[in-house]
């Protein structure tokens, strides 16, 4: 049910999420630097980057780009809002789809070879992670009998124990969604230069900043989805999330970028296989 406190909580989340997301990506960069034996930028670096980008001159190829990037930002904001409202997981999934689609449409709207290649690869990424994400949500439903987040949160034992394999599959999906190595195929997130940043090639200044902010919202949303796996106590949840994200950063630094062919050929069978086995375990119990 939507209550006033729920609503306020969701509003707070909308305001705090980008700050949290920025901090998390700052920590990510610092840790990455540490892994590579560098000093690295300060933790608040993402804030500096974004404010700088916002203060730069707008420079776009066509007006559709601006609409697309705005829809992308709004959709990830809406997804975070709905998540903290305790809404329906499927609805959040579809709202995320709006963002993904408009991000791709924005990249495709420009006659630029780099942006086109990025868009095509992004399409393949969407193709790969969407079923996994949807099936993870169905997994929640199979155990709790509801798609409703506020209901799932009331589940008494950590869901990780009943769906460990789905957790791994979701890890794949979210690595792809966050465009982290080995799946930073369409537009790398760190200072790499995969085909001059693929689907982000044609954005500059404030538009690029908006993409970045949308990305922060996505980080928070994704951590939120992971939090559903261990929602019994706040401390445990935080530890669980830290471990999950650390593992993500570690993988990001350990592995090289794959191709989209490799991605589909491996993530689908492995991810779907894990999910199906987990379904059988759930239904068999």
């Amino acid at each position, binding site marked *: 049910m939507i209550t006033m406190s729920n609503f306020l909580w969701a509003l707070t989340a909308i305001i705090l999420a980008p700050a949290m997301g920025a901090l998390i990506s700052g920590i990510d960069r610092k840790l990455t630097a540490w892994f590579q034996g560098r000093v690295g930028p*300060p933790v608040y*670096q993402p804030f*500096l*980057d974004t*404010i*700088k980008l916002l*203060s730069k001159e707008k420079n776009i190829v066509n007006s559709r780009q601006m609409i697309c990037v705005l829809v992308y930002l709004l959709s990830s904001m809406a997804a975070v809002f709905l998540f903290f409202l305790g809404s329906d997981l499927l609805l959040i999934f579809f709202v995320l789809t709006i963002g993904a689609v408009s991000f791709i449409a924005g990249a495709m709207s420009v006659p630029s070879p780099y942006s086109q290649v990025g868009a095509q690869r992004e399409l393949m990424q969407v193709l790969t992670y969407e079923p996994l994400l949807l099936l993870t949500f169905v997994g929640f439903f199979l155990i709790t009998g509801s798609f409703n987040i506020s209901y799932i949160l009331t589940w008494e034992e950590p869901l990780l124990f009943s769906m460990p394999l789905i957790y791994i599959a979701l890890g794949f999906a979210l690595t792809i969604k966050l465009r982290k190595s080995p799946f930073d195929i369409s537009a790398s997130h760190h200072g790499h230069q995969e085909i*001059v*940043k693929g689907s982000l090639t044609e954005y*500059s200044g404030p538009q690029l900043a908006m993409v970045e902010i949308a990305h922060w919202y996505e980080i928070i949303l994704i951590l939120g989805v992971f939090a559903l796996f261990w929602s019994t106590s706040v401390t445990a949840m935080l530890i669980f999330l830290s471990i999950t994200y650390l593992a993500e950063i570690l993988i990001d630094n350990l592995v090289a970028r794959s191709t989209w062919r490799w991605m589909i050929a491996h993530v689908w069978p492995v991810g779907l296989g894990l999910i199906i086995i987990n379904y059988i375990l759930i239904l068999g119990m």
Partner: protein
Amino acid sequence: MSLLSDCFKNIIAKSRAGSPWMVHLDCGSCNGCDIETWACLTPVYDLERFGIINAGNPKHADILLVTGTVNHRNRYVLENIYDQMSSPKVVVSIGSCANSGGIFKDCYNVLGGADKVIPVDIYVPGCPPKPESIIDGALEAVQKFKLNQEEK
């Protein structure tokens, strides 16, 4: 009101100083300067600790690092790349060739330094310059970039 806007300007200046992204264009250098420039990104010099990222795309970048002599063929490329950067932007020319044409100055195909084509803000001398001086030049450029608010 002016206090607020001052504060605002201050924040923007701080952010700019903390996050200058660079794009590097080789206008036909012997690769000496390029290697030294890239060396700045390695863990030894770690340019990223200043927030500098090698963006690889003029649309994302704030600082243009030019190396090598500018000739008739690539002057258009240099102009186009410079045009595609959103302002405010600064240009750093690295090494003797980019500064003045270097030993190739009098070649039939060489125009001279990068400043013949685009406005250059900082010149880093050397053939090739040491990574330390390149970093120094980049940070000088950052100071210019940070104050460059009116252009917005």
